[in-house]
């Protein structure tokens, strides 16, 4: 079985380099999103972070989720954001105050949350033992399709239908919200 494992025959190349590169791009993009005055700059930083996240999904051997991320998030949601930013004149907002009055309380709360995360991850480090060189299935899309659609193994069919209903409601809601007169 190990001989057939392509991960042993062709081990992934330079994994730590790519992980730290993509993680660095994501963190820098996230910092730029929350600190820029210009909303378009924030949007471009977020697009970069989303594309780096798609790269991380590829590193986790989830190509279908990476493809969905590129199509929906970077190619759909961010276009929507850019359209709305351009419809709303923002020259005034660049000169206004950027951070609200409770920024100190906000940062303290986030620091408390960060402390919680650090304590959870240091105490629970042993919960995730590694060591399994897993065979990445060459049929990732087919396996996700089986979980979603197959009559025998599909456990998420109902959620899929509800998601389509949710999208319909969102479309109608967005149109009603943005129209001038209903």
């Amino acid at each position, binding site marked *: 079985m190990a001989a057939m494992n392509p991960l042993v*025959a062709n081990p992934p190349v330079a994994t730590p380099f790519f992980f730290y590169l993509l993680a660095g791009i994501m963190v820098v993009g996230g910092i730029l999103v929350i600190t820029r005055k*210009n909303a*378009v*700059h924030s949007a*471009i930083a977020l*697009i970069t972070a989303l594309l780096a996240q798609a790269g991380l999904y590829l590193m986790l051997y989830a190509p*279908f989720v990476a493809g*969905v991320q590129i199509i929906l998030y970077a*190619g759909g949601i961010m276009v929507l954001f*850019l359209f709305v930013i351009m419809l709303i004149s923002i020259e005034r907002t660049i000169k206004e105050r950027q951070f609200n009055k409770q920024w100190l309380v906000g940062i303290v709360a986030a620091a408390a949350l960060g402390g919680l995360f650090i304590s959870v991850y240091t105490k629970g480090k042993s919960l995730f033992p590694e060591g399994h060189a897993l065979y990445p299935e060459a049929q990732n899309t087919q396996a996700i399709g089986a979980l979603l659609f197959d009559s025998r193994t599909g456990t998420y069919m109902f959620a899929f239908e509800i998601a389509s209903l949710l999208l319909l409601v969102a479309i109608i809601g967005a149109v009603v919200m943005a129209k001038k007169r209903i």
Partner: protein
Amino acid sequence: MNSSLMQSVVDYIQSYLSSNQTPGVAGNWFWATVYVLLVFAGVSVGVICMNWLERKILAHMQVRLGPMRVGPHGLLQPIADALKLLLKEDIIPAEADALVFWIAPFIVDLAAFTVFIVVPFGPAHAVTDMNIGILFMLGVSSLSVLGIVTAGWASNSHYPLIGALRSSAQMVSYEVAMGLAVVSAIMMTSLSAEGGTLSMIGIVQRQQEQQVWFVFKFFPLGLVAFAIFAIAMIAETNRAPFDLPEAESELTAGFHTEYSGFRWSLFFLAEYAAMMAVSSIAVTLWLGGWLRPFPSALHGAIWDQIFSLFPGLTFLFLGGLCFFNAARMPKHPFFKIQTMGLAGFGAALGLIGLVLFVSGVRERVQDIFWFSAKVAAFMYLYIWYRGTFPRYRFDQLMKVGWKVLLPTGLALLILTAVVAMRTELWAQLEGAWRP
């Protein structure tokens, strides 16, 4: 010492040439880099040729000659254009956001060139074979919308902004129709023994196994899907007759009005690369990719041999055209250099044609030649449409996208699913009918 090094290099190259996997799948980063550079060079050469071809073919369709001065029959015109664009002054409008203005052409280029990673020139001749090949191509080509929107906004001027918003609205609308046509083609791949797939090489292999190009499958469903995709891909790349956002008489060049010189050439490069990318999708999904014409009607070793002569014959024909036109050049001392240049070009093409007759080269070059020939036919169709059709008004454009192509695509999807599953459906209906 030296000969053993040469021998090991030759062995390395030969061991790779006989592989049957793409370098990405095989994990071979050296050959993957070589392929990436080859594809990049090939696409750039293709864009340069398209520049010349577009001006010449449009001119001949409009009963005029086109560029004739720069080099024999204008063959050096693209080089003159490139030099001009590189040497032009770089103007950035005042109060334009410099960073975003600078980034926008690169986003469009990134989107246009990254898709060529999965374009299959042959069963082992792609940079890599992703499991989600077609999804990757559709997704990354939709990133060019972001570049266009940021380009229009960063120019800080009315015409580019309106052009950018119109162009991106058009691209987003026709992406939906493209997606539906693609899904109906993917459904046809699931009828194979190995099951459905999204990988580009897998799609062509399914067509080879089912012995039919998907454009002819379940006639006329494959043909209508191909037609929907062919119309949507022209609107996706902002070409005539859907080029209102960038037409000179309408919006003074739309979203790239304020871009001059090298930045404009980046947009131009991205537009032609995107044309080639969506043509590659159409060729792979419906026209059998790298397969030679008539795989089932004209099968057998003799027909394989006959079709394998086509690459060499094509280049010999082009070389012959050059010699014919060199003989027709005016016999004036001013034209001596041009005549010699054209004859030399013809000789080079003829030499390539003769090399392509050599038996070892002939087999290897088959897949790449047929794929490139089909994509070249699509490029000619693009130029033909530009010279023939009048421009759509923007509301007519959106109406066609949403009210014509989308319902047709949906109906086609349902019909393809029903026809593909008709045997299972019939068996289930019979089983349900029996009490």
